């Protein structure tokens, strides 16, 4: 068996294979030192994460009947309260919840109701009230509103997620990107790009962060767990995936805690579109949740003392149908679960109300009815944790969002 100590490059390449992508932004975004320590991590679960499996309402009398063979058994769920548990794959999150450092919002949704992945992700990330309402992401606008000066930003990954796009140009770095050819080439290209509004800022930001990345690589390369390569079948593959996800979480945390490191990070996790054979306590969805749990555990462990200044929000574009579908999966739905974690949380129960799964309570007779607007949750976190001006939140960051009242009492 080969034992491989991964380089940052191989680690992030492996992460790519798991459908994980990372984008950072917000170095020195906030003038004041107390706020300057605060960190915000959003984890976007793309594809429509099934809230009813993430935080199964095992105490809801209708749950088991609606879900049939994909219901999480009450005895398998990790208990949160009289109604809710967590999926058994989420042991790390459950341990944090026991300490008051993780809470769920079990019936949350963006304002979009079209059940289209693309529209719903657009509305979630743009922070607009309607699809294609704006071409920039709400985190980018929140940073601009909070900083009022040049904001350093960094994205890792070959494509830029909408949530970070906007007037603040995202600088970027990626493993293995370091240029090893002509030292003159970047300068020549900068001259040739002078008139190009897209390529010029992109190349400038890319070059700028190469140096920062070199530093980060030196700081964290020694701290990563070895990844075992070899056989072991599906179970071995899953274990290896968990190790990669855990290491990625720690690496991202190491990047954030170095001096001048990014304050805001967006992580994408793909693979939640479970139309068929999604499984229950074990299976396809359970494997994705094991990776998610390992990633969050890695962030928690890697941030160390900085965890107390951190809030993590795990969100998805929509939930899935309350009923199992004809192929042992679930189709596109509406309300889902968001998970809020961090050392800075105020203790409390679920965030928002639980509408129940009674047939008359279901949205359009098929989905978890949303009781909370995603924008309200982010407004609360951005105001109370990151110190973003409330007036800016209502106008620039989340336009036309009066009906989405800020959620208070979380941080």
């Amino acid at each position, binding site marked *: 068996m080969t034992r491989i100590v991964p380089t940052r490059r191989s680690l992030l390449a492996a992460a790519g294979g798991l459908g994980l992508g990372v984008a950072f932004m917000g170095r020195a975004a906030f003038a004041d030192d107390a706020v300057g320590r605060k960190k915000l991590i959003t984890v976007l679960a793309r594809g429509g994460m099934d809230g009813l499996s993430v935080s199964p309402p095992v105490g809801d009398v209708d749950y088991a009947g609606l879900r049939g063979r994909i219901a999480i058994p009450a005895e398998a769920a990790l208990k949160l309260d009289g109604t809710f548990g967590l999926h058994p794959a989420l042991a790390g999150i459950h341990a944090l919840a026991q300490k008051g450092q993780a809470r769920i919002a079990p019936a949350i949704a963006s304002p979009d109701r079209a059940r289209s992945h*693309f529209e719903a992700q657009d509305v979630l990330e743009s922070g607009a009230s309607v699809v294609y309402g704006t071409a920039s992401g709400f985190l980018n606008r929140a940073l601009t509103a909070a900083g009022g000066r040049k904001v350093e930003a960094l994205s890792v990954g070959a*494509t830029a997620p909408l949530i970070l796009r906007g007037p603040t140009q995202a600088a970027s770095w*990626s493993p293995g990107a370091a240029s090893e050819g002509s030292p003159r*080439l970047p300068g020549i290209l900068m*001259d040739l790009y002078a*008139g190009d509004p897209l*390529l010029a800022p992109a190349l400038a930001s890319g070059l700028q962060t190469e140096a920062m990345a070199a530093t980060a690589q030196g700081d964290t390369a020694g701290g990563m767990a070895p990844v075992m390569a070899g056989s072991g079948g599906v179970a071995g593959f899953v274990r290896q995936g968990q190790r990669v996800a855990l290491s990625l979480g720690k690496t991202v945390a190491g990047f954030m805690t170095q001096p001048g490191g990014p304050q805001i990070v967006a992580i994408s996790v793909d693979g939640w579109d479970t139309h068929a054979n999604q499984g229950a306590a074990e299976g396809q969805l359970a494997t994705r949740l094991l990776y998610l749990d390992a990633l969050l555990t890695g962030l928690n462990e890697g941030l160390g003392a900085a965890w107390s200044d951190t809030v993590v929000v795990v969100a998805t574009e929509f939930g899935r149908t309350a009923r199992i579908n004809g192929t042992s999966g679930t189709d596109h739905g509406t309300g889902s679960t968001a998970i809020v974690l961090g050392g800075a949380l105020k203790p409390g129960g679920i965030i928002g109300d639980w509408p129940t799964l009674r047939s008359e309570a279901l949205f*359009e007779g098929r989905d978890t009815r949303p009781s909370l607007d995603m924008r309200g949750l982010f407004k609360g976190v951005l105001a109370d944790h990151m110190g973003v001006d409330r007036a800016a939140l209502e106008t620039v960051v989340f336009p036309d969002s009066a009906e989405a009242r800020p959620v208070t009492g979380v941080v």
Partner: protein
Amino acid sequence: MASPNDLNAAIAVTRFGLGARPGEIATAAAAGPRQWLISQIRPAGGADQPQETPETAGSRLRNFRLYQQDRRQMREGQGEVDPSEDPVRIAARMLREGPAVDFLARARLAATTPAGFRERWALFWANHFTVSGVKLITSVLVGPFEQEAIRPRVFGRFEDLLVASTAHQGMLVYLDQVQSVGPRSPAAAYLRRQPMPGVGGGLNENLAREILELHTVGVKGGYSQEDVTEVARALTGWSVGGLREAVSQRGEYVFRQNAHEPGARTVMGKIYPAAGPEQGLAILKDLAAHPATARHICGKIARHFVADDPPPALVARLEAAWTESGGHLTRVAEALVNAPEAWDPAPRKLKTPYEFLISSWRAIGGQPGAIEHISPPLLGMGQRVFSAPSPKGWSDEAITWAAPDAIIKRMAWAEGFSAVVAADLDPSPIAAGALGARLGEPVRKAVARAESRQEALSILLMSPEFQRR
């Protein structure tokens, strides 16, 4: 000073086509740029095929199912297996090598074809009807799907393309249609009496939704959730033959009457009487002919060929050609070539990673020699081989591909590529051949003044006029 004909020849080869091979822009100029493009449209023959004798979707599916069966039998303890016949290893090799063979052949066709517009047109439709290899088994079906369903029909009627795409094993497997069972069908009743592990026995609306949202009328097309469910019911029974079926049906499209939801369906206000596969076909035909479909897809064509935010006049021309011809794609392709808005000298489109790599090989008159030459850089730049992130396909917008990280990756690749190929090349003629009259004075000078051939070629490949089209 370049003549308008020279500039149009450069636009024809680089914007409508896949980039210029040496001498190609001069050929287009001599033929007349519009005529050069029109002559590539092949109403009867469709697009070119990357492989002369490709493996079919049917044979790959049959083989894969057989390996799965062998593996089950092996697990059930039927003795030791010779490693060379280990079904898990054979299946793993098939999953690794099948897509690699398909993709390399497609990339070599793109790098060498003298009909770049015809190939770009085929790639547009393959992306419109995306089948992605993100699901294990579908990775071996993407190549056959393009060969069998898409390429023969890209200059025919849209309706035929839609039906062929919907009924192809690649699409049926990718969007979960094979397992969808009408809840009131005999098959569902049987499964309620005799449950089978792993078989749900009910409806799956994944394919139905994407047909409406992505393949035809589009998300603003005016359909409701109930319409999605009705299309899903109508399509129940559209499936792929398994190992229990007659040999001739294994791995092929089959219609299972006993899984088909009985009764009439109502889709967007129209009633479709009870029928077998004809019910779904009738719905597909009406969706193909719907005005929202023409609007949605003509907007996409204009966005792909001309600008992320295309001129409304161009979209209107395409839509008129589509409507007048009943969705005849030859007429739409001709309308695109003849539209003055498509020839705006400003290059609005940023090349996708695939387009960038292919056009780089074309510029030097080369082609990728092995899958290892093209697969890793595509992964790094965000366009993993045969693995579009969703049924929506690869993005056609510059902002997706212009992340700073991706631009740095392009630069690093251009330097590595140049280091390998530049030694025997003369960079200035290469630059002139690749861009023709689109080559600007600053880039021409920078190439001429570079310190090395490698640097010169890197500058050319990373120049704004080469990155854009």
